């Protein structure tokens, strides 16, 4: 049987089983096992690839970031972040929808997980927004859109996976994700100001109240400082920064702010031990799927097809890849998408002489967009479920917000110097710069 037919069968099996209701990792494995049997590849080799997919030091950061999110959510310190956001922007037109966006910009820097963000925001802010008369469809749309920021800004789990699998600097991806993350955040605030519901009028919080709310949230707000500070100063790897943040929460934040939560910490560990295995077993299965795609030369065929259209124009190449990822991201989650298509991404990064961090941040922004597009916009699905509105209605409310994402993705593609400015200043090596032989400064590729 020819390679394209086997690839088509593998993909069909994965999507068919997946949409039938088989859990994603098992539908991926079923597709790979079918493909491997037809291609005469030993199934023991496939098991080895599943194992290799998770046997990575960089992926160890994921449980710690998830544990940080879990501890922050269950220790109920999110209320403090929400109060700070409320005191900062609650008086601006749009009211609580502005609060949702600012809350997400803060909380994303602690959790790194879009699904954690959407769950927390729906519970903490969904009810008050309903009481103030916002339509449930708009609430679901704005919460889902704001939670995608977590996929871009540090400590993004999507960036950790991309960096670990694509051999790209995770710290570089974290830094490069700041500009598109802020663009989405401020873009959503502008959208809420001009086009969203006006909300209820609130008085501007006096400076004393803002200062009080900031002091109240100071301890949890140290978490992004620990994570980023540790990584950027070179003291810690992302994994180690994650564990230091966990220690900070257990040793300082919980005793200071919610001492009663101490006896629940074992429960948090048990739950985190379960939750982190879900994306990771999917990573293992997707790694085997991606390996089969490369083995059957599928990645080269798609890469050749893209380069035959785009030539060596890196921007055109990225646009086509964004189109592919938008379509694929509509059906599959970001993590398996990244791993399955990494051989293709690597081939195109080389062919177009594109900076690996730039390519990474463009694709992560695209996959973040895929989280709110039909038919499988995971966070929009979750938000509509939590808020209690049909997916179709939430989708219609989200449609105008897509403009913010499309502008951000295009900006990220066409202005690499702006996107890579921050990593170039903070961690020059992450974007391919090397120390000048003269000993002063760095020499960076154009």
């Amino acid at each position, binding site marked *: 049987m020819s390679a394209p037919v086997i690839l088509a069968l593998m993909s069909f099996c994965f999507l068919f*089983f*997946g*949409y*039938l*209701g*088989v*859990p*994603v*990792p*098992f539908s991926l*494995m*079923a597709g790979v*096992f079918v493909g491997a049997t037809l291609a005469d590849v030993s*199934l*023991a080799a*496939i*098991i080895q690839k*599943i*194992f290799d997919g*998770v*046997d990575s030091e960089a992926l160890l950061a994921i*449980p710690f970031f998830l*544990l940080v999110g879990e501890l922050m*959510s269950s220790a*109920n310190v999110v209320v403090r972040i929400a*109060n700070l956001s*409320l005191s900062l922007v609650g008086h601006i037109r749009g*009211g609580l929808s502005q609060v949702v966006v600012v809350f997400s910009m803060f909380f994303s820097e602690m959790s790194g997980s879009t699904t954690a963000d959407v769950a927390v925001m729906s*519970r*903490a*802010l*969904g*009810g*008050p927004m309903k*009481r103030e008369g916002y339509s449930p469809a708009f609430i679901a749309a704005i919460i889902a859109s704001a939670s995608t920021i977590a996929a871009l800004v540090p400590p993004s789990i999507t960036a950790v996976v991309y960096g670990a699998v694509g051999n790209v600097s995770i710290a570089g991806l974290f830094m490069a994700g700041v500009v598109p993350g802020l663009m989405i955040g401020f873009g959503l605030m502008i959208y809420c100001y001009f086009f969203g519901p*006006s909300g*209820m*009028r*609130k008085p501007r919080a006096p400076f004393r109240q803002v200062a009080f709310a900031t002091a109240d949230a100071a301890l949890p707000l140290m978490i992004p400082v620990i994570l980023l500070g540790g990584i950027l100063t070179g003291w810690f790897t992302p*994994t*180690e920064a994650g564990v230091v943040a*966990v220690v900070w929460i257990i040793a300082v934040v919980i005793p200071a702010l919610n001492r009663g939560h101490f006896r629940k910490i*074992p*429960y948090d*560990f*048990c*739950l*985190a*031990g*379960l*939750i*982190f*295995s*879900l994306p*990771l*077993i*999917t990573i293992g299965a997707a790694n085997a799927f991606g390996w089969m795609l490369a083995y059957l030369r599928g990645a080269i065929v798609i890469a050749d097809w893209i380069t035959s259209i785009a030539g060596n124009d890196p921007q055109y190449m990225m646009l086509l890849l964004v189109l592919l990822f938008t379509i694929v991201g509509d*059906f599959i*989650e970001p993590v398996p998408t990244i791993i399955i298509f990494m051989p293709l991404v690597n081939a195109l990064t080389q062919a177009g002489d594109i900076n690996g961090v730039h390519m990474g941040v463009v694709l992560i922004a695209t996959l973040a967009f895929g989280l709110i597009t039909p038919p*499988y916009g995971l966070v929009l699905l979750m938000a509509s479920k939590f808020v209690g509105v049909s997916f179709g209605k939430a989708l219609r409310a989200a449609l105008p917000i897509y403009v913010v994402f499309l502008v951000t993705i295009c900006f990220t593609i066409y202005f690499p110097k702006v996107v890579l400015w921050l990593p170039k200043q903070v961690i020059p090596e992450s974007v391919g710069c090397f120390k000048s032989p003269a000993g002063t400064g760095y020499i960076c590729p154009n």
Partner: protein
Amino acid sequence: MTIADKLVLQRQQHLKWRSFDRLELVLMIVCGLLCFGFSLSVMFDIITRTVGHPWLWLQEVTSTLFIYAIFIGAAVATRRNDHLYLTGISESLHGTPRLIVEIAIRLVVLAVASCLIWYGYLNYLRGFGSFRLPSGTPIASLYAVIPLSGALIALFTVEQLVNGISKGFDHPEPPEEDFAIPPIDAGAPMGPLP
């Protein structure tokens, strides 16, 4: 409700044997211990490195606990139906179509679990020929978790299959309330903005 009670998921009881609740509890506790274990080993790794006396074997301990946690977590998630799903088509069906789809789903999972058991076991046997550094432990000690995870996945899938066929898959579930985040106090509004 004690922590132990909260650790065993009360959803979809009609698909479960109560005697396996204890196994779920044990596996959840194992997940927590593994998670705590590798958190501790990474922390000690940082400390020993910072004081200039790194314990190299800590990295080996970390990766062992990490790998075991992934595969055991994946197994217990099968019983709790906590895995990532592309869609929930089956949940919108009723009667015979639902029964057929649910059985088909479990058969696919069972087939995958069988592959994990058998080919994972073959990998485990081969793993005695490779060794991990610096301890020199055969890598089979890591591979052992794959057939173990496969066996647990198969066990939980058979549990769901037998109970689903005898009692039906379609049971109304109460809304989930496992998330302890209260809504914020948004303050007193002054009326709609002009």
